[in-house]
Every structure is written in C-alpha cells, then in structure tokens.
C-alpha cells in the first residue's frame, strides 16, 4: 500500500476542514462564501479521486487507446456539482451585494435583523 494513493483523500480532508473553519469562524460574508467554495472543491476532488482506476483511461472514444475505460458517472457528478456551484455562488454573492446596499455592511454580525 503506497501512501501516495491516499494523497487526494488527505487533500480532500484538508480542504473541507479549511472551508469549514472559514465558514464557521469568519465574520465577513464574502469570506464565508469563499469557504463554501473551498468545501465545494474538496467535494469535487473527492469524487474525481473516487473515479480513478490504475491503468484505465478516460472514457473518450476519439482516438482512444484500446484499453479499459473508467465509468464516467463521478465525472458527470463532478461536472454537475461545478455547474451548481457556479449558480449558488453567483446567487449568494448577489445576496451579499443587496445586503450591503440595505445594511451598509458585509459583516455577519450586522445581518441579524430577522431575529427578535
């Protein structure tokens, strides 16, 4: 067992912990959104590293070598997750822009008017 095989998974854990730290402890809303993006990248890396099989090639038929191909489900899932990530990040950033207009601040301590 080569420790190098676990390298992607170690990176996934690192990214997720970094992202969670930012989301939980940073007060700046933009930084929180960046933290979410970091977790998202961790999730994508996790899925991509799951799909890896040694000696298999990517499932592209154009001029492919005649060897076995990996199942592209995790790649499709990663791609979907990236697309969704774009949409959610854009939406959250728009909310922050609007919040800045209304409250004059992007600090999460100031965004507490809903609470009674």
């Amino acid at each position, binding site marked *: 067992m080569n420790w190098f095989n676990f390298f992607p998974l170690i990176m996934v854990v690192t990214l997720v912990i970094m992202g969670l730290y930012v989301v939980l402890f940073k007060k700046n809303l933009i930084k929180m959104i960046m933290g979410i993006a970091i977790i998202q990248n961790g999730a994508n890396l996790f899925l991509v590293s799951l799909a890896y099989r040694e000696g298999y090639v990517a499932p592209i038929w154009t001029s492919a070598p005649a060897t076995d191909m990996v199942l592209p*489900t995790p790649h499709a899932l990663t791609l979907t997750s990236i697309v969704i990530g774009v949409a959610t990040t854009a939406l959250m950033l728009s909310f922050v822009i609007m919040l800045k207009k209304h409250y004059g601040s992007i600090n999460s301590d100031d965004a507490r008017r809903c609470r009674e």
Partner: protein
Amino acid sequence: MNVDLLLQSPVFILGIPLLFAFLTPLADKVSKELRNAVFIIGLLLTALFVSLMAYEVYTIGSWTYVFGAEDPTAITDVSFFRITFLADGFAVLATLTIIITAVGVGIYSFGNMKDFDDLGKFYTLFLLTLAGVMGMVLTSDLFNLFVWFEVTSIASCGLIAYHNERGESVEAALKYMIISVIAGLLLLFSIGFFYGEYGVLNYFLIRDSMDGAFIDILAIGLVMVILSMKASSVPMHMWAPDAYSEAPDSITPFIAITSLGSLFVLFRLIFFVFRGAVEPSSIGNLLIILGVLSMFVGVSMALKQSDVKRLIAYLSVSQIGYMMMAVGVGFATLGTADYGAFGVNAVEGGFFHMINDGVYKALLFLSVGGIIYAADTRDLNRLGGLAHSMPFTTFFFIIGGLSIAGIPPLSGFSSKLLIYKSVYLYNPVLAIIALVVSIVTLALIGKIFFNAFLGPDQKIGMKIPRSMILSMGVLTVIIVIFSLFPNYVVSEIIAPAIEALGVAV
C-alpha cells in the same frame, strides 16, 4: 412502438413545470395576461398528470420510468445506470400533497402579488421550485436527487428574496442559501461514499448491495441530517422561521412544501433503501428524538412570538415533529411483532398527517397572508377586529387553525388520533408530549384569533382579491373532504404508499 401516455405521466409531472418555467419569461415579453395564462396552464397540466399517474398506479400498479431508453418501462441490464423515476403509491402521496398546495398557492398569488411588477421571474422561480420538489420525490437515483435538491434550494431562495427591497428578505434568503449549499455538499459527500463503496447510485442497486459497513452508517447519517435540516426539524430549524416569515405571503406555504418534500425523500430513503442495512431501532429512535425536540421546541418558541407569520412558522416546525415521531415509532418497531400491532398505524398516522399538514398549513399561511394584505401589519399587538370586514378569511382561518390543533372532526384530528393511539402503545410519554403540544397549539391559534379577528371593527377598507378567497376556499374544501372521509383517505392513499415502501403488514 407506442407507449401509453399514462405511463409517461411521471416525466410530465417534472417536465411540464420545467417547460412552462422557461416559457413564462418569454410570454411575459408579450403581455401580462399571456404570462398569467401560461403559468396557470402549467400548474393545472401538472395537476392533471399527477392525477393521471395516481389513476395508473391505483389501477395497474407501480412502475419504473427509465429516461433515455427505447421503452421507458422495460427494465434491462443498463436501466439502473440511467436516470430512473419511480411511480408508486408513495410517489403519488408525495406528488398529491405537493400539487394541492402548489395549485392553491398559484391561484392565491394572482391576487396577492398583483401590485408588483416583474412577475415573470416570480412565476419562473415558482415553477422551478415545483419541478425541483417533484423531481426530489419522484426520482430513484441519488445523483438525480442531488440535482433536484439543489434546484429546489436555488429556486426557493430566489423566491424568499423576492421582495429584495427589504433587507430582511435578503438576509433570510442568504441564511437559508448558506445552510442548504453546505447541506448539498454533504449530500454530495455521502453520494461519494455510496459510489466509492458500491459503484452504483440507483436506489434499487444500493438497496441490494448495502451491507451495513461503517462507511454506510456514516453516509446514512449524513443523508438523514441533511434531509431533516431541509425539513426544518429541530435542532436544524433556525433557517425556517426567518425564511417562512420573510418570504412573500403567497409563497410561504410553498417553502413549507419543500420541507415536506424533503421529509418524503427522507422516509423514502430510510424505508426503501436503507432498511435492510441498519438496525431499525437506531434510526427509529433518532427520528423519535428529532421529532419530540421539534414538537416541543417549535411550540415553545412559538409562545413568545408577536409576529403572526413567525408564530405559524414555529407551529409548522412543531407539526414536522409529529410526522418524524410517528414514522420513527413505526420504523423502530420494524421486524418485530409490535410493527403489526401498532407500528404500521404509526406510519399511517405520520403519512396521513403529512398530507393533512400540507393542506391546512397552506390554508393557515394563506389566511394570515390575507390578514397582512388587508391590515398591512404582521404585529399581533396592532391587529384587531378583522372579523367584521373579512368574514371569509375568518372562517378559513378557523378551519385551518382547528385542523392544525387537532380538534375533531377536522382532518388534523384523524391523523393525530392515529398517532396518539399507536405512539401510546410504544411509549406513553411520547403520546402525552404530543397531546400537550396539541393543546398549546390550540392556545396559540386562539391567541391569533382573539388578537387579529375579534375586537372592535377597525374599518379597514381594503378588500382582498377574489382569487385569494377562491384558493383558500379550494383548500378548505379539501380539508373538509379529508375530514369527512378519513378512513377512505387512509385505505386508498396512505395504505398503497406504505405498501410501495415494502413495509405493509
């Protein structure tokens, strides 16, 4: 070859809202009337296909719909590597619950939102949310579930922030968005666990290959946390009161329906997929704990609210607790003799309460929306005397309020009675808690009623539009039907759903 249109109905339930969501902005460029017509046609067509699917399921039985296949109903070797939809009794129960509220809310928003411009986006988001929830409850593939989960999150956040001239709406939407995006990522991780373990994502294949290893338990735990968060169960309920109270009045019940949709998905997963791989009592007890917490915390937080929409939002959190507790009791007794004795009744009560809850909660939120429309305030201390000028809304509020409090003979009573009876046999304390929560709920409904409707006439000149009355009337009729024929509902709608999950006695 030609496939029966009825067998294609699940895809239309998903597709019609999607297609009409994309058509609405185009129609909006032509005229407002056309846009409204497109929207309502989309909703009614969806309702039509829901009833067609129900008819087909109840006459010929359930089937699996395979996307992209030559024959959508034939199961081959590759079927489960495609996207599949599962049309069975449980899907009928879920889609029925969703579409009743959606049609009510759709009609209501014609009157309620008529003073706002740029409604093309509003209707688009509405139909997208509908498509998302429908996809969540119909799909039988984890990958697909993730997609619809995120579609629902994004579209419903857009709806919550629709009044973006108010900072509070944006704030509530941002909170909900951050929570649901992180939930979506955790769902992605649990999907990754399942894929890494078994290399499959379809419910059927996962069910058949699950062996209850540690990684399974981790993934199941993640899925349960995520879906109960979406279902606004305590302790993950903090987004719900904000989102419910800051969303546009006509949309609030629809946000609540996305919660119910997630609860349906949770029950589908634990009963249909995870049942074989886990100790039933562990998941069952977890659900019972979450349910009791939700009931208790929801109703006690509601006590101190003076904002009428926030109050009902907390009541709705406590109603979610009833369903989780009842279904948890059913799940905990699975595989023992107790299940036949009372467990199946608990599940019946839980499911019946879900469809009831969808309807009466919508009615309550909509009648409160009528109050806010007329009186232009949400503060219970400033409301008063509305019964003089709004007799219809008063009547609708009484029906909805008595139903949520479980007063006979209304529909809420029938489902709660089933829950009390069965839960009492499992553990009497649970039944007592449920009863106490019901009594406090009744007191809170009384508080709203006295504060908002009774008292001297305040001479409010504002007339609420006819479409709002109409939609509340429709929902009231449905509640009355459920109240008059609870046995029929249980035997014709709930029992097939339980059978579809494979846990019928």
